[in-house]
């Protein structure tokens, strides 16, 4: 189950995230997923409900980012690395996340974008 966390359609729903290695990166859409829950159900001898417990899973999120492009830089396009940390601003929960998957980089002219998957940093 997931729902868009904040998206107004013209771009102001995003934020500029300060990534630990890549620096300032525009996060265009931030779709926080509700933590998955693991249900532990113990039925009785007839299969009816006897005991149950629910445990919250790890929080994950997806993000579309615009990668910084500097024609004078080397390399000109800054790619996001696995394991980078980013702290969302308070408007977006204020939590710290780490990148665990980076999708393909798409390009139009001088503009580069990629989809990221992140998980909340717990300690």
């Amino acid at each position: 189950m997931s729902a868009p966390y904040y998206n107004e359609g013209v771009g102001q729903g995003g934020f500029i995230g300060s990534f630990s290695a890549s620096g300032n990166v525009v996060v265009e859409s931030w779709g926080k997923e509700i933590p998955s829950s693991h249900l532990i159900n113990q039925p009785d001898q007839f299969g009816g409900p006897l005991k149950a417990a629910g445990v919250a899973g790890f929080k994950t999120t997806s993000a579309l980012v615009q990668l910084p492009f500097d024609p004078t830089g080397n390399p000109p396009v800054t790619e996001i690395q696995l394991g980078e940390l980013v702290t969302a601003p308070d408007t977006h929960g204020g939590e710290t996340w780490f990148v665990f998957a980076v999708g393909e980089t798409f390009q139009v002219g001088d503009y580069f974008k990629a989809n990221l998957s992140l998980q909340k940093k717990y300690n």
Partner: protein
Amino acid sequence: MSIALRDIAGLTELLEQTREVETETREDAWLGITRVIAGQRVRVMTVQDYTALLQFSSPLLNRRLPSPEQFSFFLWVLSPEIQRWNEKQGWRKWRALSWIEKWQAKRHGQKVRRALKLDELEAQEAQWRAKSKLTFALPDDAPFTLAIKEAFKYVDELFLDRPPGLKKETGKSGLCYLTSWVDMLQSEYHLPTAEIWEMNIPVLFARLKAIQMRHNAKVPDFNVDRDKILQNIMLGLKRKLYTEEDLKSGRVDLVANRLRNN
């Protein structure tokens, strides 16, 4: 520190303005509205026009400075008159009258030359060369400079919706760009080749983008004007032209991408 885009003073308004311009540009492309560059009417570029300009290596397609001849050729290829010749409208189908096309092309070039005041510019250049070994720089207010800026704007708007490609494309397919375009459109819309050939470039790109987005939801949405604004902010922060506090407090001119003077 991270900063929400909505906390950047003036950004929401600027993005709204950009969105309005983009919407208008996309509508104009569908309506096929002509515009005027250097006093000449210019159509929305079709696939056929694009291929012709590419064949003649028109520098304007790559946003490079053209010579006056290249600029005049660019305007002629995009003129409504050449389209009438291509379609052999009315009396233009008579072969015996084909010399009129050459005469019209020459006359068109002369009109462009007059509109751009090239005689004056060439005289200025000759004077400059006589006294300096440095390269002659086009004056900002010269009609030729202004017309080139208009043409760049026209090309930028045409390519607003070009579909995104992967950054690390291998180019192994060996397909001509025309084959890819025609193949994608005919697979989805079953259009005759002639219709694609005459399709306006922005309409073609919008359709290709729609096809791509329908088949691959992970393809990000690109809006070049909006992306440029956000790119500038990232660069401004990286180069330490301003801080996040400056962005929040409205001390940054987002269009010029620098701190305000006052």
